[in-house]
């Protein structure tokens, strides 16, 4: 009956989530149709939210679903709708460029895995087990207050900049 234990079930769910993430990432990169890419991106981001759940943080997983899957993917879909790239010509991929890109990213992957697995990671001597949202909010409004404010400012500037960039060109071209 060990086949149905919670342990093996959690393990199965973990590998399903990993497959969702990597499969979604492949769909997001390889097909030529941009709409498939966006749907694959949504799949991969939802899988990453599942990984955050396995890493012990429900709050960050929910934020991932809210910000990435809910906001960024929808913004990209809107950009596709407004710029209509589906009706335009799709140029052929040039083989040397694709091979060089594949080689470069394979090299980066091998370097990252080498660094990650070869180095001796030191676990902190004493670790507090406080994963609550209260602790998160407390740290964000005391220790990391400046970063919080700067992020708010960056978001405000980004919104104004996006409106100005998209709005002014429309006025100029029409």
């Amino acid at each position, binding site marked *: 009956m060990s086949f149905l234990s919670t342990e093996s079930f959690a393990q199965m769910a*973990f590998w399903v989530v*990993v497959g969702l993430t*990597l499969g979604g*990432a*492949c769909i*997001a*990169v390889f097909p030529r149709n941009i709409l498939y890419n966006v749907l694959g*991106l949504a799949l*991969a*981001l939802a899988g*990453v939210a599942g*990984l*955050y759940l*396995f*890493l012990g*943080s429900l*709050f*960050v997983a929910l934020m991932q679903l809210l*910000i990435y899957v809910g906001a*960024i993917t929808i*913004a*990209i879909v*809107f*950009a596709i709708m*407004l*710029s209509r*790239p589906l009706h*335009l010509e799709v140029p052929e*991929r040039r083989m040397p460029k*694709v091979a060089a890109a*594949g080689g*470069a*990213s*394979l090299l980066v*992957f091998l370097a*990252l895995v080498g660094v*990650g*697995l070869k180095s001796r*990671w*030191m*676990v*902190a001597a004493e*670790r507090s087990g*406080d*994963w609550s949202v209260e*602790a*998160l909010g407390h*740290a964000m409004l005391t220790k990391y207050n400046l*970063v919080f404010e700067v*992020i708010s400012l*960056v*978001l405000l500037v*980004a919104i104004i*900049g*996006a*409106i100005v*960039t*998209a709005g002014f*060109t429309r006025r100029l*071209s029409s």
Partner: protein
Amino acid sequence: MNTLGVYLIIAALLFSLGLLGVLQRRNLIGMLISVELMLNGANINFMAFNRFLTPDPTVGQIFTLFVMGLAAAEAAIGLSIILALFRKMRSINIERAQQLRG
């Protein structure tokens, strides 16, 4: 399954898939999608180190939230630039945008 190495390999795979997309795509929206994948790989690394190594588990979560905020700002600016470029050139192919190089 739940070890640091597994998460590091998953994050490295996501990062290099995103890098492959940035290098080989010509579609600007496709490149933006790949950049989002790279940011997510970095985020998984933050959360994994936060789960397995750090003394205080709030630090990695807060950094992940900040990276998410920056990614939202980057997506908004990038998409508006893509829209402006499309209105000017009627194309979002990166190789058509070479008159920017002066």
